[in-house]
């Protein structure tokens, strides 16, 4: 907790990132007090420009843009978080094992790892949608993307574990009779956690970006409100040509806020992890 306050005080990027993310979280939390049901359409007059009653106007499908956006933001955020948590588990497992054991296990795991880094995921995700069609829920998509999106971070975690392996405290743990599982989970995991947190942000950016893209093309369950499906419906109703600009502008604005917020958090955390850059920043602040 103290780390957070320190960062807020000394690191302007972290502060801005936190602020942007707070906006997003508050907006998604507001979905719980929404006066409208998320699945209903034509509950208000369609195509109304922003006004006191509907602060972000209404859509051509007769929904209040703002309240619709709160549901969309909540789902998008939940989606990104689920993918991040699931894929963190995978990358931690593979990174720690590969880095600690080394040798043949490491070589095999890392060739698989590099394979997953390179494979173009988008066509594969489209193929998934193509086969599953509407039985593809966002939970399903989250699981699939977690299974495909762990590789890059597993490599990072592996490189940290590799350097930990040669440290004296690891030798000591081995001599004192700790099992591999104990060493990895009790001794090495704490060192790796900061990386896990900072990659979480990047992973969320990645998965939400892909989800938005898939949804905009109509390749997810388009009836679940997410930022992507909101833009999809707006495009379907040719919102821009019809002059219903608020239907496009606000979701795009919201998702850009989310992306920049997450990105700034990741950058400032990376800097915090690297003691060299942290030191130079402290010098600058002093």
């Amino acid at each position, binding site marked *: 907790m103290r780390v957070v306050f320190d960062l807020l005080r000394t690191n302007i990027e972290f502060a801005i990132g936190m602020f942007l993310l707070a906006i997003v979280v508050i907006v998604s939390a507001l979905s719980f007090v929404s006066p409208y049901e998320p699945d209903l359409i034509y509950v208000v007059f369609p195509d109304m420009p922003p006004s006191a009653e509907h602060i972000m106007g209404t859509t051509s499908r007769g929904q209040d843009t703002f309240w619709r956006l709160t549901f969309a933001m909540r789902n998008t955020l939940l989606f990104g978080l689920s993918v991040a948590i699931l894929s963190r588990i995978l990358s931690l497992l593979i990174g720690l094992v590969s880095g600690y054991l080394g040798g043949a296990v490491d070589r095999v795991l890392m060739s698989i790892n590099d*394979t997953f880094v*390179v494979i*173009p995921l988008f066509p594969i995700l489209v193929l998934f949608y193509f086969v599953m069609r509407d039985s593809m829920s966002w939970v399903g998509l989250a699981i699939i993307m977690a299974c495909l999106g762990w590789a890059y971070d597993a490599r990072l975690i592996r490189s940290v574990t590799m350097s930990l392996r040669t440290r004296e405290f690891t030798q000591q743990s081995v001599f004192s009779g700790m099992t591999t599982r104990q060493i990895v989970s009790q001794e090495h995991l704490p060192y790796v956690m900061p990386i896990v947190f900072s990659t979480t942000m990047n992973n969320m950016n990645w998965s939400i*970006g892909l989800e938005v893209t898939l949804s905009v093309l109509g390749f997810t369950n388009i009836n679940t409100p997410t930022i992507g499906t909101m833009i999809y419906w707006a495009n379907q109703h040719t919102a*821009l040509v019809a002059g219903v600009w608020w239907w496009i502008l606000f979701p*795009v604005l919201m998702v850009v806020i989310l992306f920049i917020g997450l990105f700034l958090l990741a950058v400032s955390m990376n800097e915090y992890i690297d003691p060299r850059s942290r030191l130079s920043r402290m010098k600058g602040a002093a």
Partner: protein
Amino acid sequence: MHGYGQYILKRLGQFVLVVFVGISITFFVTHLTPIDPVETTISAAAAFGSTSPEAIAMLRETLRELYGTEGNVIQQYVTFWGRILQGDFGPSLSAFPTPVSELIARALPWTIGLLVTATIIAWVLGNILGGLAGYYRSNVLLKMSGVLAMGLHPIPYYIVAFVLLILFAYVWPIFPLSGGYRMNLAPRWDATFILSVLYHSILPALSLILVGLGSWFMGMRALVSNIVTEDYVQYAELGGVNRRRILSRYVMRNALVPQMTGLAMSLGAIFNGAIITEEVFGYPGIGSLLVDAVHAGDYSLVLGITTISIVSVAAAVLIIDLAYPLLDPRVKVA
């Protein structure tokens, strides 16, 4: 030369593995899901347009063969590979009876042309600017471009492409809304056509470059600002070596090595971006073909594109890997 041979062998092995895993995923996606793709496809195709009974019978046969619904899973897997190794994905359903391979062959040059140009421009420009920004730290202009790169970097391709399209083709229409060349122009190797292609590619290429630039810029800047503190750079500076020479020969050259690996690693993601860009700008490449194929329920085309995508990305990575020793002579020795 022994070290180089071993290196090449290893890269080839990685190439085979990427193709193998990618195609296997494709197989399992299509075979282990509870939905019967053959009947789904046929009903979609029948709904899509007028199809004669013979065509449907032929379709069902081709699809059964392609999915290999006869035999057990292992036999199906072998049949699947046989098809793919021959590059034979059967006829397309939405453009019946044109073979899938022909449709892909027609679209592929567009994608590769756009992608290769945009990637190279983004990579070179990002590295040069990033290198300069890392070396001349107090330059205000370079600092500003750093902020811009940081701001653009986290925004997904789709949003950037979409905003560019709105700004430069809709609000201020100086670029065409969609297409790869002017509508009533016949594809020919003459000046008008080539100019038209170039003109139409500016906006899609720009979106790819803008998004790609940021990560190369930041990567290079971080690398360079680390290398600058190394002893050999300080020694060269004290020895009075020309600053420009230090930057290009001592700093950039060393920083380019990890950036090259980065290029190979991110190629899959760049390819994803290109697919999306094409759809936004209505560019006649693989991406547009894929989206149309999904909407038309054209199974063999979707499968064909997925396979070709995996193989071509793997091949591109292999090419970069093979060129890598030119940049890093240590690989040859090791």
